[in-house]
């Protein structure tokens, strides 16, 4: 395609957005660039969009907390335990007192029985997976250590200049 319809006139600004994001294939990119050479309006929007893309690129999110997985697995395990107990205890509520007393005994003995009998899942710790540390996390730790070190060590600030690390 040698000539193309003006994206702005066609209401096809997503083509210019895709161009600014570097998402067009080579042929489409070259076709559009030929158009941009002669269309100030499209050229201006493409430039503005490219600048916006660059500004958005600089916005990194903070790294994930190191204990995120641990918290999640704890919640999952609590749910598993809770739903098991719910299923077991549901038939026993509500009840009049004369039924509740023997069933309270039942509940106690049930607890004892479950503790006495081996639970393969709960007693066998899961083998930990080998974990890798993300380099971004290492970099952040280095930054934090440098700050903490400069601020906490008497005399060190004066001698280390911009940082020990």
């Amino acid at each position, binding site marked *: 395609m040698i000539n193309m319809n003006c994206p702005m006139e066609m209401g096809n600004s997503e083509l210019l957005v895709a161009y600014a994001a570097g998402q067009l294939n080579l042929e489409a990119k070259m076709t559009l660039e030929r158009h941009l050479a002669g269309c100030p309006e499209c050229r201006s929007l493409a430039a503005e969009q490219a600048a916006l893309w660059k500004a958005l690129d600089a916005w990194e999110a903070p790294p994930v907390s190191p204990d995120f997985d641990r918290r999640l697995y704890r919640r999952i395990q609590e749910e598993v335990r809770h739903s098991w107990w719910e299923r077991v205890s549901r038939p026993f509520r509500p009840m009049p007192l004369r039924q509740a007393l*023997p069933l309270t005994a039942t509940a106690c003995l049930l607890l004892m029985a479950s503790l006495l009998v081996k639970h393969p899942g709960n007693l066998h710790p899961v083998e930990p997976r080998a974990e*890798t540390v993300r380099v971004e996390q290492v970099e952040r730790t280095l930054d934090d250590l440098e700050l903490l070190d400069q601020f906490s060590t008497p005399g060190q600030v004066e001698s280390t200049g911009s940082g020990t690390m």
Partner: protein
Amino acid sequence: MRSIILSCGFAIALGVAVSAAQPAVSSDRPEAPRQARAQNPIDRWNQMSPDERERALAKLPPQRARMIRERIRRYNQLPEREKQALRERYRMFSQLPPDKQAIVRQRMLEARQLPRSRWPVIRREVDQLRAMPEAQRRARLNSEEFRSRFSPQEQQIVRDITEILPAPPK
């Protein structure tokens, strides 16, 4: 009485049945991460294989990768006692909630931007405030003397670091 005995027998039988029928939780539940993570990320990084480390660094721009290697090398070369002190400071810092960590980082960055002659003054003030009982610390932070010795920005730095960051071990 009979109902209690029957209930007990039922309970034992039920306990056995439930235990046998309960899905193998270790295979059903997601695999748990490593439990003990007392080491900081740099120490854990050092325990990765060289291949893994290089693969991770290779994804970064070369200059950034070079800087990180250099900074890790300098950390690794610290005397063990110094490294241990740093680890302990980091451990206390990392136990803060993320929002508090962010405040402390920001205040420390702001402190670095101050003239260097102010760093020991601010640090001394933080050390002295930390050593005081709560009531005395409050009084000092609200005093005219404190306000006259430190700029508003410095006051905020001192206040936040004193109140949020635990004192490093002696």
